[in-house]
């Protein structure tokens, strides 16, 4: 699995061109519109919450934690990681452009890395914007430093890489990875948290919630806040979470690069 250019030179123009072209592909107008919609979803809800709550009763920390923790981390990050990371390979195969990428004197690993980097940058930008806007709505510009925004901005790209690398690996070995990615992201990740014991350690979100906890106020009522609070495990140590995520990303990415370097990706001649 060579990471050098085919003529022995270091990564240069071809990588940049491929990265830029991939980034442009990711940021097509329709995609940007859909991404903006997703990014502003928690912002709209935060605005609605703020406007329906009288001044003194409004709790910016609660609002931020629920929107950032529940929607940005729990939904936007995950679904964008599924869509973009699986699309790195499967979209190229589906639109039959993979043929051009694989018959160039650029190693397959480098091609995959460039496209994955573009996907990761795109998703990170979207979730960052979402998180910043939520913080601004919840806290206002003056008090934004009181929020957990800085920590979230650090952990979000880690989450993008963690989920992205896993879904990228799925995309390199499974023909139609989107369904399986969704099953993992919204089936497994949800159900495993409900199983008592250590099963939650098999969930990526469990580790991310340790790195970026979003605690809500304890209430006697069983409402959505309580439900979301239940998703924050407290039994995994922070250093364990860092170790696991730090190991997961290179392992999943490395396996994806290896798989992409040795497997065949010839598009089918038929439409389906």
């Amino acid at each position, binding site marked *: 699995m060579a990471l050098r250019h085919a003529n022995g030179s270091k990564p240069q123009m071809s990588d940049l061109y491929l990265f830029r072209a991939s980034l442009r592909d990711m940021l097509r107008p329709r995609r940007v519109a*859909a991404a903006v919609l*997703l990014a502003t*979803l928690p912002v709209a*809800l935060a605005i*609605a*919450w703020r406007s*329906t*709550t009288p001044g003194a*009763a409004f709790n910016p920390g609660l609002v931020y934690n*629920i*929107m950032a923790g*529940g*929607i940005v981390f*729990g*939904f936007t990050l995950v*679904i964008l990681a*599924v*869509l973009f990371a699986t*699309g790195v390979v*499967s*979209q190229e195969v*589906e*639109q039959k452009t993979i043929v051009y990428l694989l018959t160039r004197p650029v190693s397959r690993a480098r091609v995959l890395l460039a496209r994955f980097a573009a996907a990761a940058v795109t998703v990170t930008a979207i979730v960052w914007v979402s998180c910043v806007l939520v913080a601004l709505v919840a806290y206002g510009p003056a008090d934004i430093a009181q929020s957990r925004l800085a920590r979230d901005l650090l952990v979000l790209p880690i989450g993008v890489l963690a989920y992205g690398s896993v879904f990228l690996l799925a995309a390199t070995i499974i*023909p*139609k990875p*989107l*369904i399986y990615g*969704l*099953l993992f992201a*919204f*089936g497994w990740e949800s159900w495993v948290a*409900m199983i008592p014991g250590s099963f939650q350690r098999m969930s990526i979100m469990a580790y991310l919630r340790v790195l970026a906890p979003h605690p809500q106020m304890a209430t006697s*009522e*069983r*409402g*959505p*806040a*309580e*439900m979301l609070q239940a998703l924050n495990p407290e039994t995994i140590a922070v250093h364990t979470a860092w170790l696991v995520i730090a190991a997961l990303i290179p392992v999943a990415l490395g396996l994806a690069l290896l798989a992409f370097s040795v497997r065949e990706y010839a598009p089918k001649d038929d*439409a*389906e």
Partner: protein
Amino acid sequence: MSDTPSQSAHSPIADLSYRTYDGPLRTHYVRWWVIARASLRLAMKKRGYWPLVALASFPYLMVGIMLYISKRTGMAGMLTAMGGDLYQNAFFAAYSWSLFSVFLLALLTGNAAIAGDTRANALQVYLSKPITKLDYLVGKWAGLFITVASASLIPATVLYLFVLGLYYQDGFLGEHPALILQAIAVSVLPGVLHTSVLLGFSAVAKTPRVAAALYAAFYFALGPISQITAGILGQAGHTQQAALASRMSMSGILSEVAMHVLDAKPMPGRFGGQHGLSQLPEPPLLPIVLTLAGLVLAGLAIARARVRAVEVVRG
């Protein structure tokens, strides 16, 4: 260059040249069924089809086991923890646990319903045949509906027959004469909703993958939106509206309508169909039914508007 001998009206050599088909032509009533049948065949060939069907059937198996244990031990357990009738609660539990699998099945088999034809330029081929756009849409809808609904309907029917066999001598049939109809009505609900909405997304998207992505994002986004909106409204003291908002996800709508049709009570906690929101009052059914109908009609309207026989090239 042809080797066929020349023929005349009185030639002993038969006319071996090309002839148009002069056999019987079927009536126009089955045009949509041709398309539906083709969709069904395609769906059943997909790799994930049978595993997802098995996954969707598994809850019914589990509930059957729970009912069997209940019969043996005389204890209904979690099925009647919130009150209500054992059998109705059982069907509701199996139904609500299978909703996610049915969604995935719909996504797998339905994303390419129209988007696949768009990508392959097959729409022009379809609509150049002597069929109407309505035939095409009805055929696509029927094919997808049968695929999705059967994943709920067949296991529900099997469960009903099992329950009938298990509890017949306890007067089950006399006490629940309409349960089979309720179970059937409820089983087809996910098929109706997923088919209609997914058809709309498939008509909008250029490729099956984009259609699947759009529908998945829509499906999963509604969950947290509804929950958080309910929380916002609840905190503001609008409990009725909060209760209504909390049901306004795809699975929430399906669960709520099914619960009313079956007159069932969900199991407690996260294992119920109500996502643990037992403190909120029961919302009115009419807005939920109207939302369901609205989603169905919107999906169909979008599909109807987007299906065109011409390819529009821009730039």
